[in-house]
């Protein structure tokens, strides 16, 4: 795959990819973009192995998710806190801002797999089959993670 072709494919996928990672990183846009850049480099290096058997976006999201998991393994759990989950500007005290804050804080409290399944299903409108390929788990497990994720989020989000 040429660099131009790769860039054109990435251009189309950059927004969903960054949004997915933003949800995983609890609203930390800088961290999400850093992981996205790492994922793009990894994807570019491995682009020769992309045979087109799955969608490019599925393949890219899988690499991004693996990068995120690698990042989580590197960062010690005590280095992050729920207060750091949202870095919204102080001026954004609107209702929407509050909802995002609530959402990110709730997402930070649920397990990684549930968070990823929720983000892919509700924010990226991916099918169960695609999520199964991205997260490398059976479709039944994806449904279970979604169900558990919804139940957990219900406890943390005031509607």
């Amino acid at each position, binding site marked *: 795959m040429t660099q131009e072709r790769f860039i054109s494919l990435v*251009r189309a996928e*950059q927004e969903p990819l960054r*949004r997915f990672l933003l949800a995983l990183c609890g*609203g930390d846009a800088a961290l999400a*973009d850093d992981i996205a850049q790492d994922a793009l480099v990894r994807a570019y*290096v491995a682009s020769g192995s992309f045979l087109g058997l799955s969608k490019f976006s599925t393949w890219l999201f899988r690499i991004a998710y693996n990068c995120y998991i690698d990042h989580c393994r590197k960062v010690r759990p005590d280095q992050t806190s729920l207060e750091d989950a949202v870095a919204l500007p102080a001026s954004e005290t609107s209702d929407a801002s509050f*909802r995002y804050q609530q959402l990110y804080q709730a997402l930070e409290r649920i397990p990684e797999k549930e968070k990823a399944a929720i983000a892919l299903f509700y*924010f990226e409108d991916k099918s169960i089959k695609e999520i199964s390929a991205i997260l490398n788990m059976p479709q039944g497990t994806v449904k279970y993670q979604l169900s558990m994720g*919804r139940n957990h989020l*219900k406890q943390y989000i005031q509607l």
Partner: protein
Amino acid sequence: MKEIEEFLRENKPVVKDDPTFILEAQRRMEAVEGIKAEVDRQRCYGRLALIITLMVGLFLGVVATAIAYLYPLDANTVGQGILDSIRQFLTTWKQHLLLPVALLAIALSLVLMSGKRSRSTF
């Protein structure tokens, strides 16, 4: 459960438009290309060095064989002569040789230790 699903669908995280994102990705890809080219170049040099070494080895082997055929020597006489000269050299210089050998052993152990330390940092 419907409420939470609606909440999630209505509150998708918003990504700020960042034109530098793709430019940064392109810059990193250029860097990857640079590294790839350098690795290829080094691999090519390595292959070339290997071929040159093989050719030189072959040439020297041919020359040595030719000399051996052209100027045959009595192996026993030559071998005995060399062994005698080595024995004489060691007997004469054994006290002076001890120091360089010890220094060489220390230097070698230091090099090996530093090599291990530098590998462990990556």
